Each structure stands twice: as C-alpha cells, then as structure tokens.
C-alpha cells in the first residue's frame, strides 16, 4: 500500500477546463490514475479527454465517488474552491496552485481541521504512488515503484532525488510535496507518521530547505520512528532568507538555519546527505540494515 493515494483512489480536478487543469488531466489519466471527474463552474456537461465536467464538487462526489481532488484554479479562487471541496467531503485535497494568499491558506487549514480533510499544499507538485496513482504535476517517468517514502518541500529537487534513486534501482512507495508556502496542510511530521504506519514503506527520504522549523519538528518525530530516515537540506550556502523581522526569530527561536536543521536531524537519528547524489547510497545502506 502507498500512503494518501493508491489504485483505488477516485481522483478529480477542480479547474479541469483550465490550461493547467486540462493538460494535467490528460497526463494523470494517461498514467492510470482513476480520474473520475472534474469541475468548471458553468461548464457542466462538457468533457475533457472523456472525463465528465460538473459545476460542483458535490456532483463529482455523489455521482462518481471522488475522494481526492487536485485543485488547479487560479490563486484568487482557491479559497472558495477549497471550502467547496472540504464541505463536499473530499478526503484529501491537493492544492497545486501557487501564490495562494497566506491568510486564505490559514482559513482553509482551519476548515479542513474541522472536517477532518487532509490538505496537501498549497504550492505543491502533488502526490504520486508510482504505478498506481498520480495526483499532481510531477514528471511521472522519474518514479519507480519500491519501498522508499519521499517527502519534500521542493519540487525539482525531489524529482532529482527520485530520479537518482531510480537510477540506483531503488523505487518509491509514495512521493509527496508538502508545498513551499509558509502555511501548508500536512507537514513533514504528519507524513512521516503515515510512512511509519505504511507496510510497504521501509525507509523515508526527507528533502528540506532552510527557513521555518518544519525540519526541526520532523527531527523530533524521527526519534520516535522505527524506520530509517535519510534527509537532504538545501540552502547551506544561501544568505539568511528574508526573515520575518525579529518576531519571526521569536517563532523560530534560533532554528531555521542550515546548521540548526542539520544538527537537529543528526540528533534525531536521520542520516543526512551532503549532496543530492549521496541520497541513493544512504538509502541503499538503510535498506540493507
């Protein structure tokens, strides 16, 4: 089994008739994802590559049993679309759209919490269970199926690592992008926990970045995990990010730098790679253990 999505997932796309939505509908369906429907208000009755289009998410849920939605509407419409999906009972909402106002993201996460909806993103490449289901915009050919869970804040870097793993003939159970924004739904800890409980996953790769405290919180959780974790953190050489003033430092409390993240992950028991290309060897040694 994968986490979040699998071959039984009934996926839909909000904004399926848009440029992005239509393009990725074809690619997701082509990958074998059970893409059952899509929405585009005012376009009910249309089809995109044979996939039926409705006005409302509720129609997609009641008529096709959609339980996972990839949200691809422009940023100003994400708030409304996300609430619609959550109210309609979507279980996993994958918000691909970038540049979502952060106050909208806070609202969405609060409502999702009320309704027990899991949100991935915003500003994520999505989630893929290789060979089973792709709900996102990642280059699917880099993913080979196997025992490694992959969770990342950044897109391209995780594609790079997935490809490197694949070249070493190491496959992936599920790859998830948590999203690059200040406020996102499922975080590293939530997904590490899911991988910890996933029978197929034997080892987890965490791809982080400087800034924020998500990696430090992950490091705390890794202490409690039975499965090995390999981490890579980008930004060692970057100048201090544009920090959120002194109050931001209060929230970070000295965390957020490369050094702090690295130290926390080391202490948490993760094996930290110096370079992306070191990840496959570290994973291979974990899988051998």
């Amino acid at each position: 089994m994968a986490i979040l999505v699998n071959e039984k997932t009934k996926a839909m796309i909000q904004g399926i008739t848009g440029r992005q939505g239509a393009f990725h509908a074809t690619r997701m369906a082509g990958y074998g994802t059970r893409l059952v429907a899509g929405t585009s208000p005012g376009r009910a009755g249309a089809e995109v590559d044979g996939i039926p289009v409705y006005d409302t998410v509720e129609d997609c849920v009641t008529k096709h049993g959609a339980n996972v939605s990839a949200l691809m509407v422009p940023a100003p419409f994400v708030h409304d679309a996300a609430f619609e999906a959550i109210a309609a009972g979507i279980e996993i909402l994958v918000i691909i759209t970038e540049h979502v106002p952060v106050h909208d993201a806070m609202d969405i996460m609060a409502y999702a919490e009320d309704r027990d909806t899991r949100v991935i993103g915003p500003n994520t490449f999505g989630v893929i269970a290789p060979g089973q289901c792709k709900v996102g915009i990642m280059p699917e050919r880099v993913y080979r199926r196997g025992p490694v869970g992959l969770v990342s804040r950044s897109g391209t870097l995780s594609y790079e690592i997935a490809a490197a793993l694949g070249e070493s003939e190491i496959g992936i159970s599920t790859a998830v992008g948590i999203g690059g924004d200040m406020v996102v739904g499922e975080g590293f800890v939530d997904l590490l926990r899911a991988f910890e409980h996933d029978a197929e996953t034997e080892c987890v790769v965490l791809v982080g970045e400087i800034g924020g405290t998500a990696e430090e919180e992950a490091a705390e959780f890794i202490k409690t995990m039975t499965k090995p974790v390999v981490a890579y953190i980008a930004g060692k050489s970057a100048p201090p990010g544009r920090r959120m003033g002194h109050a931001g430092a209060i929230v970070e409390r000295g965390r957020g730098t490369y050094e702090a993240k690295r130290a926390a992950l080391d202490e948490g028991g993760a094996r930290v790679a110096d370079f992306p290309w070191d990840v496959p060897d570290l994973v291979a040694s974990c899988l051998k253990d």
Partner: protein
Amino acid sequence: MCPGSDYLKLYEYMAKETFARYGIPVPAGSVVESAEEAEQVAGSLGGPVALKSQVLSGGRGKAGGIQFAPDPAAARKAAAELLGSTIQGLVVDRLLVEEQLFIEHELYLGLIIDPSTRGPLIIASRKGGVDIEEVPGRDIVRERVDVRWGLFPYQVRSITSRMGISGRMARQFGGIAMSLYRLFRGEDAVLTEINPLAATTNGLVAADGRLTMDDDSAYRHPEVPDTHQRTEIEEKIAGLGLSYVPLDGRVAIMANGAGATMATMDILEHFGSRAMNFLDVGGGASGEKMTEALKTLAGTDPDVILINVFGGITRCDEVAESTREVYQSGALRGIPLVVRLVGTNEEEGREILREAGISAHHELLGAAREAAALGGGTATGGDGDGDTSQ
C-alpha cells in the same frame, strides 16, 4: 522561506498611516522630502520633533538615521543632513517628521503567522523598545488566535494579565491589540509590530511600527504601493515574473525550482566558488522569459553562467532553444556557459544544443565542478566522485 520568497515591507510612515486607519494612536506627523517641508511640518506641530529616515533596514537609530530638533529651524538643519545620506547602502529620500514623544515606559506588541500552528500568533511584552528576540523568554507573552473567530477580549485580558499590566494601560493595550488583529487580517499582513508601544502621559502611542504584507495578496490591495527596492537587473527579472536575488559570487546561475537552485548554490560553494545570484525559472516559464533572463544574467558580467535544469514542467527543448538563441546572439561576449540538462524532452534539447555547438552535462556534479573551476573555485572539494558522463 528561501531567498526567492518575497514579502512587501512597508515604510514606517506607511505602517503608521495604516495603524491610524485602524484606530491605533500614532504620533502626530508627516512624511517630507525636503528640508523646507521638514521646517514647515515642525512649525505646524509646534514643539520639539523627531526626524526619522524612511529606509527599509534595521539599525537606523544606531546609524544616525534619527535626529531630534527643538524648533523648526533646527528641524530644517537636521533634515538637510539626513536627506541624501545613506543607511546600509540605501539612500534616504524621505523623512518622517513627528512630534517628539516623552516616553515613560515601552511595551511591545507584534502579530505574526506561525507556520507550526498554521495561524496567527500574538507576541507581547512589557519590555519593548529593544529587538524582541533580545527579550528573555519569561518576559514574552504569546497567544494564538483562531482565524475562525478572531481575537476575543478575554484573550486580550489574559495577555495583559500575563504581561503584568493593568488598569487604563491594560484596557488601552487591549483595544490596540484588537485593532492590530483586524489590521493583520484585513490588510493581509504576514507580520506587524509596534515597537515601542510607548506609554506617554497621553496614553499608549505606536512610536515605531513595522508592517509586512503578503505579496500574494497584493491583488486585493491595489492601494498599497510597491515598496520593493530593486536594482535595474532585479526590476528587469521581476518584470518577467521570475524569482531573482543578487548574491556575492562570480557564477551566474539559472536553475528551475527554488530548492534545486539553492542546492546548485550549495554545490558551487562546496567546490570553492560562489553563486552570483539566485534565479529560479521553474514553474513552466516560457522560452522567451528564459531568453530574456539569460541575456540579463550575461549583462551582470559573471565569470561563467551555469544552467541547471531538471525538466519537469520545464521542457529541456525550450531551455535549449533559449540557450542557443542567447549563445548565437553574441550576448554572452565570451562568457563561458556550462549546461546541465536532463528531464522532459531531454533528447530534443540536447540535439538543439549539439547543433549550436554547446555540450551539456548529464550530472549536476560535473557541471558544478566545471562552473566552479571557471568561477574562481578549486574544483577539487567534495567527495571526489567524478562525473564521467561527458
């Protein structure tokens, strides 16, 4: 979080205008652009004034950017000195001329988004006037706010009780906190601070303030001016909708994805070189934009340009076309080009480059090593895993 993420910091005088709009007391004053205006404003304020340089950097006070004047003539003189001076490389072209406050006590009040709890966090202290991160933890009061319902008076009472303030000061602090939360939500702020929140004989006044907006919400606030201070190059690349930050090395970088761009910078540094910029063309930028961005990079006169693309949405053939166009246009004027190109439409891209006489690496390691060697690095650091794909 990464160097490319962008927030819109407002000048002090804009922050205070916004505070006033939400009913938060601020000192009487006006922003001026000349010594004459400063004199006039000081005259109409009718008392000693403070003249505060309007620059978006910290440490303004220590750098001499704030002066006091007992009368309009002195204000004119001080303004003449401040205007045109530079603070941390930023030219002072505006001053905020305000009534000078006589402060009995300084408090702190801030609101920020806490990524861990995915909601607003109030930070307050009875020890204001210094950087809040220098205040001991026991003197800092935190309170989460539920975005479903907003800030409640009972929470404010709890904050002031924990701060150890009471009576009229606590009530006024509470009112200001309620207003600041409304501002935070209403203006799509990611950070706002009042520091110091000054206790004067006339009650609490926002003596200095900071307001940082969420760029992604700018469309909801057309009235907010764009205060980003950009160089000509930054302006040009920002105009293309791409993320660009100038850095201090000699290797110009164009990569896709913020994380991947940072990783490229890290590897260059490992090989003893440094990136000259952060430029992320990810997210499906068009060929024309990449062409423009590359030409602009060439204009910054780097030792070498390193293109690192792992194609996902970004298509290798489009990257290759842009690269060829810039290469053949002569815009590089001999600047060496190192390309690493894999991913979507890789074969087509390599063919285009091959025809133009440009060789491309498969592996990041080899590309970074070559670029670092050309960009002042040692090209020997690291673990010695050679790149044999070339």
